[in-house]
């Protein structure tokens, strides 16, 4: 039994890092809650276009949503591989998760540049301001997750990610899945439920 493992437990019987990270995720709920609230509060109130109905690309975003969902599957498979000490599949699934996250970011970058080309910038109207802040903040979280996964992949490649380090991967997984569930909400409330009149 490692001393590190003993040192991370408290009277709750749970790993303190995990408790701390769930608390962080709780605070992230509040952050995205306020961003989503702001988007919904101003939805349909833009006095000039483009409006969501005119510009949102549902087929493209559906594919990127699928990519992010599959990255969550790869993440849990990576954690399972690390827990059983399977270094080969640890690397495979961590790399898969990071690549799928990067693909999602490419989709988002493509979408943003397309919107700018079509005349929607952050300063164009209320929709542009709230949309770019909300989805941009989510995109930044995905970027942080991809960097985090890349560091885990490097650790794994150096043989420093054995079963005793499974908690590190589990916490990274919690972050990644949280980013996924936030997108599940954004995809529904921003892309699929387009309330309000077209400008």
């Amino acid at each position, binding site marked *: 039994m490692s001393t590190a493992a003993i040192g991370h437990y408290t009277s709750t019987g749970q790993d303190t890092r995990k408790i701390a990270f769930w608390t962080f995720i709780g605070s992230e709920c509040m952050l995205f809650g306020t961003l989503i609230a702001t988007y919904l509060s101003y939805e349909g109130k833009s006095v000039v276009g483009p409006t969501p109905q005119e510009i949102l690309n*549902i087929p493209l975003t559906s594919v990127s949503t699928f990519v992010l969902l599959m990255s969550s599957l790869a993440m*849990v498979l990576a954690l399972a591989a690390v827990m059983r000490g399977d270094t080969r599949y640890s690397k495979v699934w961590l790399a898969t998760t990071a690549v799928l996250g990067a693909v999602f970011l490419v989709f988002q970058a493509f979408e943003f540049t397309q919107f700018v080309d079509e005349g929607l910038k952050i300063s164009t109207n209320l929709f542009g301001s709230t949309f770019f802040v909300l989805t941009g903040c989510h995109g930044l979280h995905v970027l942080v997750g991809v960097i985090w996964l890349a560091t885990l992949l490097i650790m794994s490649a150096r043989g420093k990610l054995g079963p005793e380090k499974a908690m590190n991967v589990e916490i990274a997984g919690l972050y990644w*899945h949280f980013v996924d569930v936030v997108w599940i909400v954004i995809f529904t409330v921003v892309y699929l439920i387009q309330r309000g009149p077209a400008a």
Partner: protein
Amino acid sequence: MSQEVLEKPSAHPSARVYLSIAAILTAITVVEVAIFYIPAIRGTMVLAPVLLLLSAGKFALVVMFYMHLKPDSKLFTAIFTAPLVLAAAVILALMTLLGAWVY
């Protein structure tokens, strides 16, 4: 509390369960997008509740199985659920205060 109890790992689901969840998540997403394109539903009051219900289902599946809240300690469920409920309340309160229900 003994170290055996402290270090006992929570029983995570099998790879088969993970794959089943992924299949269900994909199926729900396909249904969501399909509903969006059905003209008879798109302009009605039914669209939002149905999509929110489907989205909530996906959310719950990821949180329970991929984030392991189902097999893990209820302490984590409490730590996550309390701010989540608060965030939902903030969304509803802000939308009401800023007149988001009226066009």
